[in-house]
């Protein structure tokens, strides 16, 4: 059986839900879970449950490979050789996209980024082209199939496997081209937008930065992340890190609730592959109602607090 490597992402020592979905995308292959930034023992139960035949902790010269994207990329390249991987998959998160592009450059192999579906055996993938307006079906001609999957695009399904833990100390060094001086903490307890299962977005109708607290209160009840439309960011109500859409983030949650968002094409570019889209808007003629699943005509300042109370 051919082996597929999956770069596992973790948070607070636990496997991210999005990585389990990537493992499901590799069903039918021998799955080698590659861990860079956590203790594999703490991940074993979950990774074995979702199909990992092996759980490999990657290290390089005794260093934490996750501390440098170039070192992580070199270690992953070494792992491809060591385990004779015919595919290497990861999440199209900020770090996943960055590391995979580095791996692809080192290996000089094609890379398909941000796929919504893929077939490892056929070496085909489906992904967005033209800012979410079209899907492109791609055929990859490569010895090793490299791809990242859009978070939440594939629902994780349990498929128990052995989950044997081993360590692979890769014989690679950091080229030391990048020196990470510091990490400036944002609002650290907020759920990461691109990987959140539920997102509540505030548009121009939010009227002021402090009114996002109303959305945050609602989001906190269901573990959702809070986003903003371009209009709200441009008006100074929210930072760019919260922007969903063209020139912002592309998201694909199970549930997207747009509060006071008009629904520009550029906004849809960043969220149209969400499973269910709900819009709340005072204007019954807002374009968003033509392109979402459920709509409520109403003032967000009336509707959202009631929603927070009832959730």
């Amino acid at each position, binding site marked *: 059986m051919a082996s597929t490597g999956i770069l596992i992402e973790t948070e607070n020592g636990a496997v991210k839900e999005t990585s389990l979905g990537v493992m499901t995308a590799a069903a039918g292959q021998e799955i080698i879970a590659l861990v860079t930034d956590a203790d594999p023992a703490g991940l074993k139960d979950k990774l074995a449950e979702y199909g990992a035949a092996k759980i490999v902790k990657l290290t390089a010269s005794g260093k934490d490979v996750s501390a440098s994207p170039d070192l992580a990329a070199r270690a992953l390249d070494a792992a491809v050789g060591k385990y004779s991987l015919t595919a290497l998959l990861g999440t199209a*998160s*900020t770090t996943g996209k*960055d590391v995979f*592009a580095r791996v*692809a*450059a*080192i290996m000089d192999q*094609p890379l398909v*980024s*941000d796929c919504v579906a893929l077939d490892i055996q056929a070496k*085909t993938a489906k992904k967005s*082209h033209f800012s*979410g*307006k*079209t*899907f*492109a*079906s*791609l*055929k990859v001609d490569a010895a090793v199939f490299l791809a990242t999957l859009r978070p939440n695009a594939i629902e994780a399904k349990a498929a128990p496997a052995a989950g044997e833990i081993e360590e692979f100390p890769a014989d690679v060094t950091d080229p030391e*081209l*990048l*020196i990470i*001086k*510091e*990490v*400036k903490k*944002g*609002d*650290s307890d907020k*759920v990461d937008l691109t990987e959140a299962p539920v997102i509540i977005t505030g548009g121009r109708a939010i009227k002021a930065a402090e009114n996002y607290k109303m959305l945050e209160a609602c989001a906190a009840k269901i573990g959702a992340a809070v986003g903003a439309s371009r209009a709200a960011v441009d008006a100074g109500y929210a*930072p*760019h*890190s*919260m922007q969903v859409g*063209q020139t*912002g983030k592309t998201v694909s949650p199970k*549930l997207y609730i747009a509060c006071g968002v008009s629904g520009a*094409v*550029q906004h849809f570019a960043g969220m*149209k*592959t969400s*499973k*269910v*889209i*709900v819009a709340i808007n005072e204007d019954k003629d807002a374009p968003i*109602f*033509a*392109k979402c*699943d*459920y*709509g*409520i005509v*109403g003032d967000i300042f*009336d*509707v959202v607090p*009631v*929603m927070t109370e*009832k*959730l």
Partner: protein
Amino acid sequence: MKICVCVKHVPDTAATIKIEGENAFRDSEIKFVVNPYDEYGVEEAVKLKEKNGGEVVIVTVGKAEAAATIRSAMAMGADRAILVKTDSQFLDASLTAKALKAAMEKDGLPDMIFTGKGSVDTESFQTQYRLAHSLGMPVVNEVSTLSVDGKKAVAELEVGGGDKQVIEIDLPCVIGATKGLNEPRYPKFPDIMKAKKKKIDEMSLADLGLDASAPGVTVEKLEPVPERTGAKMIEGSVEEQVTELIRVLKEDEKVL
């Protein structure tokens, strides 16, 4: 200081993409523009030139029609341009990177290279990494804050959840620009007129010793992303609307 900015000729994000045949689109009726993320790169390069002197060269791999897009980028203040002509909008990222590298080597390697964080047509987010790797330069992508001091640059990028990494690199380097880095200028009429006289050095892939015959990735099919046909509107008092919405999301859609 010589700065190269890689600019891609892409359909305007507001354009309607009409698919033709299995894997092509009608490009004759739609407006093409400078890839929006590349505009941040052009602006940053021009600002650096205004501060430190030197020149800004636009490097594009694209169809012959890309010349118009290059003129727009030059109207923002770039000095001249190189266009490596190809027949396809969907050139393999690896080949694009090789073409950019060869064109820059022929012209003389720059002190800095800017790209956008990705292009809005193929959305594949990798050309800058391949270019940087082949030139042995550091690359930082999705840069929203940048300072350059002599031979060093400090770049900030968002790494998720609002956290920002601060990364120091040596020049020469490759920077993938994103929103927040600056506010790209709107060229004034005299700048647009001036840009018409600026030089575009045109060449083919073959001139650079490259060929497009064995792509790693092929677009087999293009299809519209299915559009939703209109919302199911939930009526009633606010209480009733919210109660029904939560019921639908829990029971029918199972997303809560």
